[in-house]
């Protein structure tokens, strides 16, 4: 295998007005594993997408073996020998393992697919993981019949099938069990010897220290440092990830009265991602959920709102509940501000008023009393200080902060007793965030129980008295009082010891 060096210099990527990457740098060499680390919003995934050609930078350069390259698509990146493994998003469900691995570059014989060759090559790829796989993982198995860890392995083998010079493993170990991870790391060792360059993007500190030679840390869209693993430790990397982060002045929580009624009591909640989470929230408490994205926070909130299936016990206001539909949760005075404003929270082409009243139209009689609806809408808009042309303007015309006010406004109109928030300040400017925090503390002080997931550690530290950090579907730490510190938060997010 030819040696390769890939260098990313000062890459910048903006989407609309948002800067996802301000100054991305990376140097990857043959025979080395370079880990890419960063907290939420650090630009880690954007940099990874630039490497694989999914996204092209607005400015900056990508150099392969010293020569600048431009990838217009992932296909071009692959042709240059760069292959990526994501989390099983790219498999075709009704094709077999072999067909998926070789899709687009199937071995041919006289124009026809060479099934024998395909099967043989697939089997030799599968053999790399021999002993780690259940017997059903054969070249002819359909993807739909595979479990998540098996699909992940197929993704890895698919990337390998292109015989890459550089492979990017982006959270590729998330679905694998420990034995499979061990085998993968053995393989990585072989690849290194063979001259491959490897980029390892992960949120698991322990794995990074096992496999990587170098670590490159991103923070707030910038590459802030590169360290040699053998010469550093977990604490130093964590510090790089958080050092000097913006600390907005925030309102500290008042002490929660210990005898406030327990509004929500969850026991052993399980979903596809959650592996048994238990917690309690009292009236007037702002409980935070922390951790990196995808660790089960969304699932937890959606399950509590009746939006997804779950197993486990939920006791709300002292009564055991089983919500099978959000409407049922709403009747028990639960409200959810969902994670993706655009696809889950708002009807973009409808007016602000329509969005505000959508959950509540059945309270306005038949025919609907529009005047009352307008009055209620005006009132909540004033309370939230929404900046808008009129109640009848489409919600798509609002800025991010104001759109989020609509999402929360539609729930506040119903005076919920339990308010669930799924990363509500994503993509909102600083001023709107401050207003939002003020609103939350007001609600808390008025006695609302609030369960609040944020990918922004500053928010959690500033607003909450108690934070549960989720990692790999479980609570990895409960931080409160003295232990509610940034280092512990980040460390628990990475599964590292605090």
């Amino acid at each position, binding site marked *: 295998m030819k040696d390769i060096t890939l260098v990313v210099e000062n890459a910048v990527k903006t989407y609309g007005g948002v800067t996802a990457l301000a100054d991305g740098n990376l140097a990857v060499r043959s025979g080395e594993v370079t880990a890419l680390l960063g907290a939420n919003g650090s630009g880690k995934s954007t940099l990874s997408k630039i490497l694989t050609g*999914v996204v092209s930078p607005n400015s900056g350069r990508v150099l392969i073996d010293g020569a600048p390259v431009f990838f217009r*698509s*992932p*296909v071009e990146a*692959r042709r240059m020998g760069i292959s990526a493994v994501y989390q099983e*998003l*790219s*498999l*075709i*469900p*009704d*094709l077999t393992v072999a*067909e998926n691995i070789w*899709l*687009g570059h*199937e071995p*041919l014989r006289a*124009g*026809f*697919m060479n*099934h024998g060759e395909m099967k043989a090559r697939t089997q030799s790829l599968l053999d790399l993981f021999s002993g780690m796989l259940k017997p*059903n993982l054969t070249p*002819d198995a*359909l993807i*739909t*019949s595979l479990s998540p860890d098996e699909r992940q392995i197929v993704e890895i083998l698919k990337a390998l099938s292109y015989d890459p010079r550089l492979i990017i493993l982006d959270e590729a170990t998330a679905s694998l069990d420990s034995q499979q991870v061990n085998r993968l790391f053995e393989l990585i060792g072989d690849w290194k010897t063979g001259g491959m360059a490897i980029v390892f993007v992960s949120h698991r500190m322990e794995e990074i220290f096992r496999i990587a030679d170098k670590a490159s840390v991103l923070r707030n869209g910038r590459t802030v440092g590169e360290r040699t693993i053998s010469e550093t430790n977990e604490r130093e990397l964590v510090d790089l990830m958080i050092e000097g982060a913006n600390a907005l002045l925030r309102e500290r929580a008042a002490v929660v009265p210990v005898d406030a009624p327990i509004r929500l009591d969850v026991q052993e909640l399980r979903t596809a991602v959650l592996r048994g989470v238990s917690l309690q929230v009292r009236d007037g408490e702002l409980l935070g959920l922390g951790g990196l994205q995808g660790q089960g926070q969304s699932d937890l909130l959606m399950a509590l709102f009746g939006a997804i299936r779950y197993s486990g016990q939920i006791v709300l206001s002292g009564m055991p509940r089983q919500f099978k539909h959000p409407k049922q949760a709403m009747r028990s005075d639960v409200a959810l501000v969902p994670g993706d404003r655009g696809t889950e929270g708002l009807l973009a082409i409808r007016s602000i008023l329509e969005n505000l009243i959508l959950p509540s139209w059945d309270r306005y009689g038949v025919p609907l009393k529009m005047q009352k609806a307008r009055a209620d809408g005006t009132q909540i808009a004033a309370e939230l200080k929404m900046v808008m042309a009129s109640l009848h303007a489409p919600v798509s015309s609002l800025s991010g902060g104001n759109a989020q006010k609509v999402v929360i406004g539609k729930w506040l109109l119903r005076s919920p007793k339990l308010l669930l928030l799924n990363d509500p300040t994503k993509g909102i400017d600083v001023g709107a965030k401050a207003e939002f925090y003020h609103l939350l503390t007001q609600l808390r002080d008025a006695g609302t129980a609030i369960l609040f997931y944020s990918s922004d550690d500053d928010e959690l530290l500033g607003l909450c008295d108690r934070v549960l950090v989720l990692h790999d579907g479980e609570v990895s730490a409960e931080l409160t009082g003295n232990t509610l510190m940034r280092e512990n938060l980040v460390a628990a997010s990475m599964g590292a010891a605090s």
Partner: protein
Amino acid sequence: MNGRLSRTFSRNPFVFSLILFLVLVVINRALQDNMFELGPLNGNLRVFIPAIFLAVGQTFVIIAGGVDLSVGAMVSMTSAILATQIPQEATADVFLRALLLAFGAGALAGTLNGFGVTVLRLQPIVTTYATSFIFAGIALAILPEPGGRLPRDITSFWRNPLQVTTEIGIPIGLIVITLLVLFWIIIANTRYKQFLFATGGKAEAAYTTGIRVNRVKFTTYLFSALFATLAGMAIVFGTGTGNPRAGEQMTLLSVVAVVIGGTRLSGGQGNIIGSIIGALILGIIGNVLSFANLDSWVRPLIDALIIIIALAIPGLISLGRRMWKP
């Protein structure tokens, strides 16, 4: 259901329909003694051929995630073209010219559909519904009333079994089915089949892998038009005359045959063989019902109920699965 059995079913979804087909054959044979004699067999298969062609063409479109509701109208158009272009005393070159004309018209029709769906990015259902009116109009414009008479040579060739020797004959329909099966075996071994499955299964993933999704979809509409033209030819050769409304009821049947055959309407999987079996099933049901001597005022209802039930079965199965899972 244990693993191996369920894997057989999922990898080859037409297994279920094959079983149904065999059951129906048995029933048919019970009602019709001479079913397997060359004459009746040939006649039966000949009648089934147009539906089989349509089902085959429709399968391509559906696998890739679309649907073609204009196939019936394309059949009508072909019928009109052939009836007017092949006079009773036609010579071979006139005949061939007419065939080419029909194929040409079909190609244009398929191009219109493909263009609308891939270039203009219109929704397949309503688009092909709209083009079906255009093609139906063209058919009526060319041939306002049923008519035309084809040369005896053609009709007798098509209607009679192929005589290998004076004793042994092969039904034409059987030859066609065999050719279609061979056709599928060839296609299924090319990259094209993978592209079809990927385009219908997960278009974004297919695109990232470098598959030209739009091009693949376009070809499926060309295939559909090709087979609709062949279906029209089969009808005209069989009846010996043209009918500008020949295909009116056939569109829905083509979709039903595909669904019975095990291909999902949402796309991403499927195969021709299942659709052929599906078309055969529909044909045999028609036979069985006519033996049941139902009067002509009950038949349409029974036919429609059978169709609806056939279409509902995949949904009922997955509903059952959803309720079974804890």
